[in-house]
């Protein structure tokens, strides 16, 4: 008996899936992402961006990213230069006082004045650094918020795409990463950095001797922690990702084979509609993931730019003040620079952790699609 392929009269898959995507988007709770995209200069809502991404349009192109980067740097540059100028002026006054000290009969007065100058610099810089610490804390909360609203959707889409094993394996990892990253940052990294800043300030005062070793210990503790968490997390993620892809790919293939062979034509039609829904789910999952990754990158961008400019400001100030021989100021600037670098590494690490976790979920879907054949 001659049978014409079932999809001979069917419409193009893109058009066919559009109403399905619209219907699915109505069921997805993604309204809690707030003004992430408004901050990035996008007027479209989250769901519109996902719809566009599902049609193959990137939510942010390279030009938009460069524009956003330029805007952020321009906004922060003035503040950084002003801060650098103030630090340098105070350092010069300190240097003059330090030189006067040797010529004055009562050098202690000049010494106290020098320390007052240092405290002024420290107060100014510490207030900026604490502002950055708070900004990073808020950014981590926003990142966690995005992950906590995005991952239930991605995991649900994994379920509807037939990636049961992958979803089951990823759920504890996602819960651990989302909760653990926030706790690690707020309860461990931020306190360590705050303590480090205090150690640097107390060490620069130099009353009880130097505290450089303690400062180095704080730095190393932060770096070891981040390194250990990263290694552990990505090790588990990589192994589970590979295992889940193989299981899900084979399970979907077996299920389709069974369905196709129950009733010749109706079974094939059913298998086709299941396949289409699976593929649609993977397409929608990729779109949600891509938009989520853009949001994650957008949230990380502002604190990282501000931290980088602060590091530049502190390192430049430290380099310029070194020949002036105002050791408390130079030492503290260097120490604050280290602390801010650690903060930048930490927020970058949290962002990359969430970013790679999303990429693994998206990659898993594509791999399952390939395995399905």
């Amino acid at each position, binding site marked *: 008996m001659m*049978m014409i392929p079932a999809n001979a009269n069917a419409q193009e898959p893109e058009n066919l899936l559009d109403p399905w995507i619209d219907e699915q988007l109505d069921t997805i709770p993604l309204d809690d992402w707030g003004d992430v995209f408004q901050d990035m200069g996008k007027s479209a809502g989250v769901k519109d961006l996902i719809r566009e991404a599902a049609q193959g349009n990137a939510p942010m192109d390279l030009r938009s990213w460069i524009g956003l980067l330029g805007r952020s740097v321009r906004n922060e540059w003035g503040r950084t230069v002003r801060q650098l100028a103030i630090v340098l002026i105070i350092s010069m006054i300190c240097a003059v006082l330090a030189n006067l000290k040797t010529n004055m009969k009562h050098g202690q007065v000049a010494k*106290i004045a020098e320390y007052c100058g240092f405290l002024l610099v420290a107060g100014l810089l510490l207030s900026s650094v604490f502002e950055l610490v708070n900004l990073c804390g808020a950014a981590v909360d926003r990142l966690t918020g995005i992950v906590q609203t995005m*991952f239930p959707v991605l995991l649900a889409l994994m379920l509807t795409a037939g990636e049961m094993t992958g*979803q089951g394996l990823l759920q504890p990892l996602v819960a651990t990463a989302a909760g653990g990253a926030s706790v690690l940052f707020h309860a461990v990294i931020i306190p360590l950095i705050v303590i480090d800043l*205090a150690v640097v300030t107390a060490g620069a005062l130099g*009353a009880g001797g130097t505290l450089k070793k303690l400062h180095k210990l704080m730095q190393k503790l932060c770096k070891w922690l981040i390194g250990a968490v990263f290694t552990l997390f990505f090790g588990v993620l990589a192994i589970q990702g590979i295992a889940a892809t193989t299981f899900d790919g084979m399970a979907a293939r077996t299920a389709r084979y069974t369905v196709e062979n129950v009733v010749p034509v109706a079974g094939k039609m059913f298998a086709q509609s299941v396949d289409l829904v699976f593929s649609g789910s993977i397409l929608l999952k990729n779109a949600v993931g891509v938009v989520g990754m853009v949001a994650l990158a957008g949230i990380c961008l502002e604190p990282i730019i501000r931290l980088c400019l602060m590091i530049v400001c502190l390192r430049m100030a430290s380099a310029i003040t070194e020949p002036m021989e105002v050791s408390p100021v130079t030492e503290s600037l260097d120490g604050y620079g280290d602390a801010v670098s650690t903060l930048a590494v930490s927020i970058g690490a949290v962002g990359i952790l969430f970013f790679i976790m999303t990429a693994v979920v998206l990659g898993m879907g594509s791999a399952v699609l390939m395995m399905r054949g």
Partner: protein
Amino acid sequence: MEQIKSWVLQLVMIGLGGVIASSLIHRESFQRYVKLVIGFLMIMVLIQPVIKLRDFSFDPSRLLFENMGGLAEETSAISSDMERVNANWMDEYAVKNMQSQIETDIETVLGYDSRVDVRLSPDGSGIYRVRITVREALTGEDQLWILNSLRENYGLTEDKIRLIGG
């Protein structure tokens, strides 16, 4: 955070106190003693958090997996909404495809222009009935071919098929 703030403040105040004290004392031998005392004070303040860690109970499994239940519930709620949309959509897709396939088969093999209407059972048990309307009068052989074709390809019994000829 409050504890950290007070710890930091203690550290800075001791450092500042040391600087002021050593500035007020002129004799170098006394300055050495002041530095020693300030150093001891600093060590005492610095080791305070380490001593407090002794009483600190921390269960990582409770901390890390406390979001698990919430995530699983939310995923399951979203997934069941999506499954509902998928089920409706797959039914619609399968019905459209089936109608189109039967119409094409009848036209290709028998040469009739037909209109097929497939209805699904509301309880989700499968096809409720298939109604095939053909403008021309169908011969007995043609009717038999259609019934056989529907039985073989779609597993449909005769009671679910309505054949209307012109």
